[in-house]
């Protein structure tokens, strides 16, 4: 059940009135929240996509949902209360509010959010905006949340978003960070690691001289390159070259191809062998040619939907050191 109570054009919000409206919408029935889920959008193009996924998560993990819509001309409030649609979920309401915050100053936006939070539960921010950190709203929200989720991939300003992100977060931050673009790469990292699981193949890691990656957007390629470099102790020489500990040069080629946010292929070459993984239908085909040639085999393409990614970001480890190291290397690549 959903209760759409108001759609006013008030320039500011009465948070007490919002609470009362939630109560009204529930018909006096109880509500619950496993987290405060704050979502920020300022681009019409992403709005519905983000909100739809956010609602889905809130339905699965009953949340206090606070959606900040900073799109030009968007004002007013929409207060809703929902009974979970998720199977086996207890029939206790969860509540949401959409706040049109265009024209409202950043400190006030943060104040409204803070006033609506349920105390003593995790506060999660999904920041879905091209402008990442050059935003006072972001800086303000950062002080009241423990998790920040964003997606540096597929934005209008790629790879600037990632550049800004890496420069902002290389320092120690009190919040847990999750970039969906990085998280999407877990299956690809696993596929690449598989080539070298056999201890007899480890020497090949230090013999890599060329990396070629194709993807529909830049973040994935940069992250994969940054990850390989940070794990293998390479340093950045320029935007398309790494240097290993013995001074050998590794070329790093990136090609945009296919759908945004989707990696198409990864190829690593040593002097004697090539390790290739590429999308083939709903699978990834793995092939090794040259000295260490192996028969082609397929593994499932573990494409993780965005809702699940956000969910993982919320529920996952607070600090991902591998990610932070890869991000730092990406920052160096983009300097």
């Amino acid at each position, binding site marked *: 059940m959903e209760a759409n109570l108001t759609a006013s054009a008030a320039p500011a919000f009465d948070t007490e009135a919002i609470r009362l409206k939630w109560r009204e919408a529930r018909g006096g029935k109880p509500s619950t929240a496993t987290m405060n889920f704050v979502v920020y959008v300022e681009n019409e193009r992403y709005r519905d996509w983000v909100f739809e996924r956010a609602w889905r998560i809130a339905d699965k993990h009953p949340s206090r949902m606070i959606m900040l819509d900073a799109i030009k001309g968007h004002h007013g409030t929409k207060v809703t209360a929902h009974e979970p649609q998720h199977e086996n979920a207890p029939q206790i309401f969860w509540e949401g509010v959409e706040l049109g915050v265009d024209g409202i100053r950043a400190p006030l936006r943060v104040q409204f959010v803070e006033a609506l939070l349920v105390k003593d539960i995790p506060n999660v921010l999904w920041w879905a905006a091209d402008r990442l950190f050059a935003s006072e709203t972001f800086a303000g929200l950062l002080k009241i949340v423990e998790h920040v989720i964003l997606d540096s991939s597929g934005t209008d300003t790629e790879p600037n978003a990632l550049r800004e992100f890496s420069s902002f977060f290389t320092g120690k931050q009190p919040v847990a960070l999750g970039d969906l673009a990085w998280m999407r790469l877990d299956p690809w990292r696993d596929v690449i690691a598989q080539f070298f*699981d056999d201890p007899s193949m480890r020497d090949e*890691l230090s013999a890599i001289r060329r990396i070629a990656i194709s993807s529909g957007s830049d973040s994935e390629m940069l992250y994969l390159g940054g990850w390989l470099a940070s794990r293998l102790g390479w340093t950045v020489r320029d935007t398309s070259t790494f240097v290993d500990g013995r001074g050998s040069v590794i070329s790093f080629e990136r090609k945009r191809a296919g759908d945004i946010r989707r990696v198409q292929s990864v190829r690593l070459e040593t002097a004697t062998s090539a390790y290739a993984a590429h999308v*083939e239908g709903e699978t990834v085909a793995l092939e090794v040619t040259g000295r260490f040639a192996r028969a082609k085999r397929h593994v*499932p393409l573990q494409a993780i939907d965005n809702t699940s990614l956000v969910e993982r970001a919320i529920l996952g480890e607070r600090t991902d050191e591998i990610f932070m190291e890869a991000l730092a290397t990406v920052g160096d690549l983009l300097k």
Partner: protein
Amino acid sequence: MAQTVPRSASSSDGNPLRAGLSTNRIKDPCNVIFFGASGDLMKRMLMPAMYNLRLGDVLPVKYGIVGFSRTEWDDDGFRKEMKASIDEFSRSGEAKDPLWSDFAKHVSYVSGDFDDPKCYVLERNDSELGTEHNRLFYLSTPPGLFTKIVDMLDEAGLGPRDNQGGWTRIIVEKPFGTDLASARALQSEITKVFEERHVYRIDHYLGKEPVQDIMALRFANVIFEPIWNRRYIESVQITAAETVGVEHRGGYYETSGALRDMIQNHVINLFALVAMEPPVSADADSIRDEKMKVLRALRPIDPDQLVHYAARGQYAAGTINAQAVPGYREEPDVNPKSNVETFAAVKLYVDSWRWAGVPFYLRSGKRLAGKLSEIAIRFKDIPHRLFGESSDDIEHNTLVMKIQPEEGVSLRFSAKVPGPKMHIRSVSMDFNYGTGFGVVSAPAYERLIGDAMRGDATLFTRWDAVEAAWEAVTPILERWLMLKDTSFPNYAAGSQGPVSADALFDDEDDGWRRI
């Protein structure tokens, strides 16, 4: 351009690219050989589990799956049957190419009698699939064949003694024996060929996520362990109730019954997890040592007092979900005068400092009012009634660990009803796995087969625990075999079970939780 600082290339796995990846892949190449490969378990559970392990990329790169049974199939015939089973029963739906074709290349079949030495050959797989002499045998045949198969494995040089190049393990399906004597005899035969460390006695209940969460709840929280004892706990109830009847297993069930089929293994395993002391570490033997200690501390039941400690029942015709269902004696392959119990309830006491005087009520039955597996911890009454008359409504606090159909934990406690009067009512605080973690747990067989391939025996039952469980139930079994229950059938299908089970409770304020 700035230079990154070279970072450590080490990881726990030796492959620096593995650091931080939560992959669960099995490392050792391995052959898994299923005895009884044309059986129902293989179709519904085992092969779908193997395929899902492959889909999850958990299987090692080099692996072989061999089905062995009497049914006359060739490799392709078996693959076709198994694909149909996966299509029908796998949680991932229809098996599709190219993944299915890749998988099928690793699947082969041996048709023959289990006593035919010609069938016990694995060299081809080792050479063609590179499985390096690592072997996991899975006995999913009728128990009567276990000994024969083990002997034949030894004769064929496939036992651990003759396998110098790799490891050998054996998964044994339940039931492990039909009573204490037969379990000991089976153990004696198996240990002629396999050492205890090679034997994985499977109890699929232990592979269920909420069962594993019992350990987390107890030992990863500070708030429960201090009250997990006789000072605060009044009683514990463990229920494994089903709505289904014996279905097509009437023949087997006639030789088994609820006490053997459920209480002796699944339910007692749950009991051990609830009652054991904290293990010194999370390794398999530390946990199994503690489970064993608590089973050893079980107070023997005096057969002459059995009526106070055990109850049995058999379902009559009734109604479940608005459908009329037959009584047990009308089921196929069941003796119309059968005295086999389809419901069993037991009251156990643990003679230890922690549990002295706390009754553990265990029950399991078929064709009951609902499908429900849970552990309910009932805490003692408050020591003093502060709120006068309204205190009369104060119920015992209850912590319920829900295993199925809902997976989660709930805590029942008292709260004030809003209003001018101090009126107290019980409320419930619920944790639901699906909501809390948003993940679907992998079926138990996937978890357990994967663990056996890795050599992790934590979730398998060690012989000493099997023996202790048989020791606990054998006096009841013997008495029940000796004395027929003339009241059978004594509960209607779809009911809460036989009234005689209520007699197990000493405290009239206590009773079975509603199913």
